[in-house]
């Protein structure tokens, strides 16, 4: 609350009484009428090497009626809740649980708590409801093009370490780079486009 007040104060001081400039076009968020249809996602899926992702918050399996879900099972989640690699492996997990949550302007929290006995339903929070498991350049091209055409909130997650929460985004469209795992060793590396008449002796 204090932060909000200070921000407002700063804003007023900086801009005086000038009204903030409205966005010309807000992003299309999940739940909006503009959100792509099943058929549109399906035609995107035809361009991809992997099925579309439906990311779920880390603690989701603790709320599921079945013992096994794509995100794992509850005892596994409880055991590995703070494990960085476990979180990196789940497209719906952030490294810091606070970024999985969403705070409405009225102060209501949208979250999926590890403690399911609180009797609070598991909510999607800031986890994008759909995403692309990018495995090659064509996947990324199709996904970015789709996001652009549909004016979606494009969210890139790799391991989910971003400390500003940018690996998540409520109602967004997740691009998961986690499985871009190619690696090559070059004994003598030459950058693309480098002229052959110049050399720089680096350290070996």
């Amino acid at each position, binding site marked *: 609350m204090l932060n909000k007040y200070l921000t407002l104060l700063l804003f007023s001081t900086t801009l005086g009484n000038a009204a903030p400039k409205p966005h010309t076009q807000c992003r299309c968020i999940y739940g909006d009428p503009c959100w792509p249809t099943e058929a549109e996602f399906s035609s995107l899926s035809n361009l991809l090497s992997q099925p579309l992702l439906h990311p779920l918050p880390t603690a989701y399996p603790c709320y599921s009626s079945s013992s096994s879900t794509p995100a794992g099972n509850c005892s596994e989640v409880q055991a590995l809740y703070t494990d960085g*690699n476990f979180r990196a492996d789940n497209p719906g997990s952030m490294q810091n649980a606070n970024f999985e949550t969403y705070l409405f302007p009225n102060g209501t929290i949208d979250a999926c708590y590890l403690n399911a006995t609180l009797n609070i339903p598991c909510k999607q929070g800031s986890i994008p409801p759909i995403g692309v498991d990018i495995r090659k350049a064509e996947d990324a091209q199709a996904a970015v093009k789709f996001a652009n055409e549909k004016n979606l909130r494009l969210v890139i997650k790799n391991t989910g*370490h971003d400390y500003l929460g940018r690996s998540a985004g409520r109602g967004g469209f997740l691009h998961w780079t986690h499985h871009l795992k190619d690696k090559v*060793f*070059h004994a003598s590396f030459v950058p693309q486009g480098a002229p052959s008449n110049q050399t720089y002796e680096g350290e070996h």
Partner: protein
Amino acid sequence: MHPLFLKGRHRIRRTRVSIEPISVDLINAHILVPAVTFGAGIQWYEAYDYIDGQGRFVVGGLSQGGSVGSAGGWVMGGGHSAFSPSLGLGKILPSRRNPNN
């Protein structure tokens, strides 16, 4: 687009009135050093295993379980490592390049 290299670690240059910070040079030349190229999803635990398997040592990032991605912000932020005082800054290229050109 030129590849970004961090060249040298003792480039503090004296001027008449001030000391300039370490410079980051854009080198457009052959670099005759071993290097690795990684996809965006490679994490440090995989990077260290792979480079160790090549019989090399790399100045890289540190996190529990090595879960942080290695082809991203760490190197673009300068590549500051616990080993930097003795071995310099991280020198992995921040983007993929064609090794055969």
